[in-house]
């Protein structure tokens, strides 16, 4: 008999409990779904980095050697430096090194000396042996100094992206070079390095 009376009560409790659980779930789901309103808007932006490029040519006679030079002789070679990137250079340097070395490049007093000039237009070449004349204005890029140097600063270059500097490299064996410089050989490499301009606001 007790069981009969208690059974409906237990069922009621279960129903109530179920409603409670459902209600709680609905409350949580409702609050979770509609917690906030948002509004969005967007904008886009394309950013491109520039390029820095230092190339030589079409004129480049630096690879042309000279033989049987004597004290007081000089060799002229032309080279075009192109600033081919989209970013201007701020400065340029030259590093020269000898892969085959002799007193011609190691003697800084009587050994080979280097000077570089720039012509506002392309150099007019004659020879060989090569010599050059400038139909425009000439400016000094590097005053005479010992042939071998590291990161030597160059002056009066344009350095502007999309332009070309026409250079003439002159290597001279001083007239003071003695007999000790006879029958020697050096192979020299030239490396021009450009450094970008200072940072700006674009």
């Amino acid at each position: 008999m007790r069981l009969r009376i208690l059974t409906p009560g237990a069922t009621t409790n279960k129903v109530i409990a179920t409603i409670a659980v459902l209600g709680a779930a609905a409350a949580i789901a409702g609050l979770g779904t509609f917690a906030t309103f948002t509004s969005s808007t967007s904008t886009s932006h394309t950013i491109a980095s520039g390029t820095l490029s230092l190339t030589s040519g079409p004129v480049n006679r630096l690879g042309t050697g000279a033989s049987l030079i004597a004290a007081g002789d000089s060799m002229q070679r032309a080279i075009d430096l192109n600033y081919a990137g989209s970013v201007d250079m701020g400065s340029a340097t030259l590093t020269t090194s000898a892969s085959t070395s002799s007193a011609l490049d190691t003697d800084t007093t009587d050994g080979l000396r280097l000077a570089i000039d720039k012509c506002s237009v392309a150099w007019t070449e004659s020879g060989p042996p090569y010599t050059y004349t400038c139909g425009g204005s000439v400016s000094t890029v590097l005053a005479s100094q010992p042939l071998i140097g590291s990161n030597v600063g160059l002056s009066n270059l344009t350095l502007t992206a999309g332009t070309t500097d026409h250079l003439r490299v002159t290597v001279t064996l001083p007239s003071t070079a003695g007999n000790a410089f006879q029958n020697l050989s050096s192979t020299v490499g030239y490396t021009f390095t450009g450094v970008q301009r200072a940072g700006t606001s674009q």
Partner: protein
Amino acid sequence: MPLLGHSGRRGRPGQLLASTALLVGAAGLTALGLCAGFANASPPAAGGHHPRLSVTPRALAPVGALAPGDRAERTLELRYRGAGRFTAVMLRMRSRNNSVLNSATRPGLHLTIERCSRRWTRKGRTKAYVCRGKHWSVLKAIRLSGERRFTLRHLSRLPGKTDHLRFTMSLPRTADNGLQGRISRMVYRFTGVAAR
């Protein structure tokens, strides 16, 4: 009587349970009802009852030939329309393309956001902007890498107001040659969270 007494003793937990169920059920219905009210309201994009965000321009002027040490400044206007105010404004940024400029491991692009109480003005004939009013930092310099989200600070967030922002993109001086000739296509998404 034993039965009644027995029933009476068990009646209190039952009533308690019923009351709890009713309360929870009512709370659930209330929540749903409230939410239904929100749901029935005009959506933020169409109605004027809720705050909305808009930004101009939709595309910032592109930056070309950025070099290490360079910075590019762009201004934009963030407008708050409709009624009510936002409790927060978030910025989500992502790159549309996989660019090394947005690399997390290399010194790539950085972004800074500032706000001016007045419209930003050009600094002479340069491409830089200056603030001739009160000035705030909205977002300190962060790296433009991957998909990221930030809460913006010092915005007005008031209906009818416009925040004048300056975006400054920069490429660190330490950026190497590997970053030359690259393109980054960024999308900046502003999201305002409305006050309830």
